[in-house]
């Protein structure tokens, strides 16, 4: 079993915060495709379309048949750990600060032998289950885990580097007025978050669930209006230095496309929250989080955004809202690159239509707030960059990957 990590002591303000370092970043283009699979939480390796050989490290021609038709595909995740070493000296700054570091050779059931990070509960030789994870630099790495779960296995320090676990961390949920925000708060606390700050715009206005938030000592309700730059900056001034995870649950949604409205007033409201609100949060909290990417047990780890799957492709019934979602996705892509310098992950939770008052006329299936909350926690615990929630989101993603132009037509009336 792994020794459970203890809650960190209160930070000593006299000790300088360690500037974050990143693991080796350079990758070939073929290897980046592995990162794309890991971003979606898949275990996929390059497989030859002509002869079926699984190739590793990623390459540009098959070592068995010289085919150039190599594509990443899901493969069996089992293997045998056959050799190990504990690295005690390294010239790389990231690993130097984290030594000793344990790695091993795993003979995969699907063919190749790989070098992998090892979970502390593994012994050599033994059967392992492989996972593909994004490291702090956003690149895929292979991680060998015990075949059967062990106690507190998520607390292994090498494993924790590859996820964004909320355990012992302080989280800001930006909009707690709605059902989604409140479900996320609850799920984070169940996942051992130390504190959840809950943003509420116009806190003097009463709302359903208010008393539950007030009753829990681990929850701190904070005034936060993402459409107001001053409000966002003030909150960042207060808690930005101790926000380890930010979950943006704010979303302003109204039905209607472009021609079904006569002006841009509603669209502007949507953009104020969904696009500019996100930018305000990023600009106020991002630099503070990025500077604390290696700050011990409760280092800053993730900036999470819950956004509609229709960011990928416009849905005519909610066409203007989709437009704001598309802009929101683009903001996230930029932010992901910018936050990487601190090793802070930007996680996207793509949801189908949420089951709420504004989507009352939308046919099911619709997404329950609690499902979104589960997805947020799963993305954090797994370090998964892109997650989908609900059948609609999965369906749209699959169609988009298959042919975005066909999807565009399907999404139109």
């Amino acid at each position, binding site marked *: 079993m792994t020794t459970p990590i203890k809650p960190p002591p209160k930070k000593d303000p006299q000790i300088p915060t360690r500037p974050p370092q990143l693991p080796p970043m350079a990758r070939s283009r073929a290897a980046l495709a592995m990162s794309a699979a890991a971003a979606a939480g898949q275990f996929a390796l390059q497989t030859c379309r002509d002869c079926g050989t699984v190739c590793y490290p990623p390459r540009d021609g098959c070592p068995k048949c010289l085919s150039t038709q190599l594509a990443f595909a899901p493969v069996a995740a089992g293997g045998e750990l056959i050799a190990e070493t504990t690295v*005690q000296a390294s010239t790389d700054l990231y690993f130097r600060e984290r030594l000793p570091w344990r790695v091993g050779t795993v003979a995969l059931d699907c063919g190749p032998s790989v070098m992998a990070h090892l979970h502390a509960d593994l012994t050599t030789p033994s059967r392992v289950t492989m996972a593909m994870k994004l490291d702090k630099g956003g690149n895929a*790495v292979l991680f060998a885990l015990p075949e059967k779960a062990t106690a507190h296995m998520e607390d292994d320090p090498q494993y924790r580097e590859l996820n964004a676990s909320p355990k012992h961390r302080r989280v800001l949920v930006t909009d707690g007025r709605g059902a989604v925000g409140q479900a996320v708060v609850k799920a984070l606390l169940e996942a051992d978050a130390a504190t959840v700050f809950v943003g509420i715009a116009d806190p003097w206005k009463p709302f359903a669930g208010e008393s539950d938030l007030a009753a829990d000592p681990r929850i701190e309700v904070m005034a936060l209006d993402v459409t107001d730059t001053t409000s966002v900056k003030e909150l960042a001034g207060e808690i930005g230095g101790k926000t380890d995870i930010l979950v943006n649950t704010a979303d302003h949604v109204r039905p209607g496309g472009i021609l079904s409205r006569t002006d841009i007033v509603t669209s502007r409201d949507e953009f104020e929250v969904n696009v500019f609100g996100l930018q305000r949060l990023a600009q106020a909290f991002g630099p503070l989080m990025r500077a604390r990417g290696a700050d011990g047990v409760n280092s800053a780890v993730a900036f999470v955004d819950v956004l509609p799957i229709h960011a990928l492709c416009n849905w005519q019934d909610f066409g203007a809202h989709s437009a704001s979602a598309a802009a929101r996705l683009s903001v996230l892509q930029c932010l992901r690159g910018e936050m990487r310098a601190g090793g802070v992950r930007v996680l996207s939770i793509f949801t189908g239509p949420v089951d709420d008052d504004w989507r009352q006329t939308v046919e099911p299936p619709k997404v329950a707030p609690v499902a979104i909350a589960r997805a947020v926690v799963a993305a954090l615990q797994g370090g998964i960059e892109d997650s989908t929630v609900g059948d609609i989101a999965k369906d749209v993603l699959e169609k988009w990957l298959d042919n975005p132009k066909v999807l565009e037509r399907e999404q139109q009336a």
Partner: protein
Amino acid sequence: MTLRPAASRQGYDKVVVAVPVSVPYKRYAIEPAHWWVAEALRALVAGAGIEATDLDGLSVSSFTLAPDTAVGLTQHFGLSPRWLDSIPMGGASAVIALRRAARAVQAGDACLIACIGADTNHVDSFRRLLSSFSRFAQDASYPYGYGGPNASFALLTDYYMRRHGAQREDFGKLCVAQRENALTYPHAIFKKPLTLEEYLEARPISDPIRLFDCVMPVAGAEAFLVMTEDVAKDLGLAHARVLSAIERHNAYPDDPVQMRGGWALDIDELWGMAGLSPDRIDLLETYDDYPVIVTMQFEDLGFCKKGEGPDFIRSHTFTNDGSFPNNTNGGQLSAGQAGAAGGYLGMVEAIRQITGQSLSKQVVGARRALVSGFGMVNFDRGLCSGAAVLEGVVP
């Protein structure tokens, strides 16, 4: 279509090596690789009693010439060779440079070829070399703890120990013996004896590898000349005949961990061509980036069976005055690793030993040597291997 069997390889009749040159190593040098090449060329020319313009062939191995290649060196040093080679094969460089130069001489493409391994070592050279070594290392090895070759060979060592029951003491014995040999070699970077206890207790680098399992990166150069026996006689040079030579790349790619090098594929041809059996060798120069690789060479070159390496180690002294002299000037583990010149260290030492010009303690009656090379950890294993059997002729 079935290919007809490959024609049997021709011998290296009448091809010899001469003028072994070692430019004394320095831990760190401010001079670039070009300076070390220049020193080697100067010593070759002086040793052969020729003019630099008499050299009509050049083979260079270096990791630190950038932005230059072997081409730039011709203009740099005023050479006009009609045969030019660049061998980027690390520890296998010397054997492969020799093999190819020998063929050129045999075919008349050149008559006097300078083979040079040279590298500088600035304070940050090792770190820089690692960071740009290979695409597979970049994609699939460095992101895992960035232990460099130490970690890759630690995995090989761990696997070998589990599989064949080797003990740290066995590898220690090799390192201690090489140090003893190094103490007789004036250019060795290590000048103090090494005890088994010091070896076992040394600073851990990447388990089970500790400090004295690892080579010390240094700056230096090694070189020799390849020519026909007639030319060597005309110049009055002590020389050694090339009895046989092999090279192989990426052998046994499906072994889950490297347990054998390419030697094992070509060993029959190596000994057959030389017309010798392994017991006729007076000394062995193995490529010793790590002692597990030395052990692997004992097995793959035919001195014992696979897995018998530990017993073989326990039954010999490996010293110049004992049984089975190995790495007679201390090898890279004690003399230092001068980048690609590390691949040349054993070759140059062997030429000296079997032509009566030894700088290290002379192995009594040494006439025949086997020199082995191994190089380029592209990802998880060394890809290049080679070996050559030499026989000394003293005029």
